[in-house]
């Protein structure tokens, strides 16, 4: 085989690989399936899942009065185990007043400023993560259900575009790892399919709970791209696309990941 043929052959292989495209529904896997037996056991048992510490804090905050209105979440929403069931599985959701999708953390903060008349909680603060984890815990085991209509379609498309766009100094698109090479490894760690089924989740590397936005910012830094600030519309669009892409998969919050 001449060098030229060999190169052409290699190039065609690369193209075939790059054209792997979207993951067929039957092959979708949560990051849970790629974890070690020990880490899976840690997530499955509430007695050992460190994310439960935040969930318990969230329960306390849910029932604590806050702000000038002196109202607790529970004063309007009642028992979260009933009222918040499957709610997190529908977020990010379109907000008609803002005219764009908002994620769960933003929704909690909107409730705080509008209904409780309290200052919004900082992104990644212990309190906001605890409330988000408590709310999302009520969706554990339920399928993700992102409904897209004409109003939210442009934001989903923007998120999809961002997922497939090469960016950063490494010139990598999210899809090149998470759609095309999810069966492979990167620096010894399995590459996941990037289904956000368990956020906010406890990452052993972080030694704490973190949001999907924290994870996305980490990935962006990883490809040497400038990451967006917390709450940026670009991040929410990407969250919307990822959750929509995982439609039908079961929520795991609070998940544990290595």
């Amino acid at each position, binding site marked *: 085989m001449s060098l030229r043929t060999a190169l052409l052959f290699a190039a065609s292989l690369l193209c075939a690989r790059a054209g792997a495209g979207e993951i067929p529904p039957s092959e979708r896997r949560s990051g849970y399936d790629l974890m070690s037996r020990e880490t899976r056991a*840690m997530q499955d*048992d509430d*007695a*050992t899942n*460190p994310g*439960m*510490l935040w969930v*318990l*804090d969230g329960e*306390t905050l849910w029932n604590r009065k806050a702000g000038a209105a002196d109202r607790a979440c529970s004063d309007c929403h009642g028992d979260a185990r009933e009222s918040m069931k499957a709610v997190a599985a529908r977020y990010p959701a379109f907000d008609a007043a803002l005219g764009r999708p908002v994620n769960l953390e933003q929704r909690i903060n909107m409730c705080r400023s509008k209904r409780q008349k309290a200052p919004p909680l900082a992104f990644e603060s*212990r309190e906001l993560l605890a409330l988000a984890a408590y709310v999302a815990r009520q969706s554990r085991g339920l399928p993700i259900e992102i409904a897209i209509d004409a109003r939210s379609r442009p934001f989903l498309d923007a998120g999809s575009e961002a997922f497939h766009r090469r960016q950063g100094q490494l010139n990598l698109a999210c899809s090149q790892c998470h759609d095309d090479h999810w069966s492979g490894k990167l620096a010894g760690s399995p590459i996941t399919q990037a289904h956000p089924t368990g956020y906010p989740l406890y990452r*052993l590397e972080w*030694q*704490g709970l973190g949001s999907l936005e924290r994870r996305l910012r980490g990935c962006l830094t990883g490809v040497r791209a400038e990451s967006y600030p917390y709450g940026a519309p670009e991040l929410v669009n990407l969250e919307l696309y990822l959750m929509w892409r995982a439609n039908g998969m079961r929520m795991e919050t609070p998940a544990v990941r290595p």
Partner: protein
Amino acid sequence: MARAVVTVPARAKRGEIVEVKTLAQHPMETGFRRTQTGELIPRDIIRRFTCTYNGTEVYRVELHPAMSANPLIAFSTIAAETGTLAFQWVGDNGYSVTETASISVE
């Protein structure tokens, strides 16, 4: 918020080996890390964990800077009599958390 979660079987047979799981909320700051401006972050860790069963110490751990945040400590003990398991975590900066769980032995 300093929180701890303990899991002990509610009932057991006399002489049975039971598993006890504890999870304490703590950053376990090693004291070796620095901020972006180079200042040392002071150490803040849990130093000691003890478990007493009806007043008798059955398990004790000394913790050191290399242990992870929110340490999970699981161990086993023998269900000797109905009573209370008392847990205590003591650490830097006056950190002290206590928790109890009861077990009924038949």
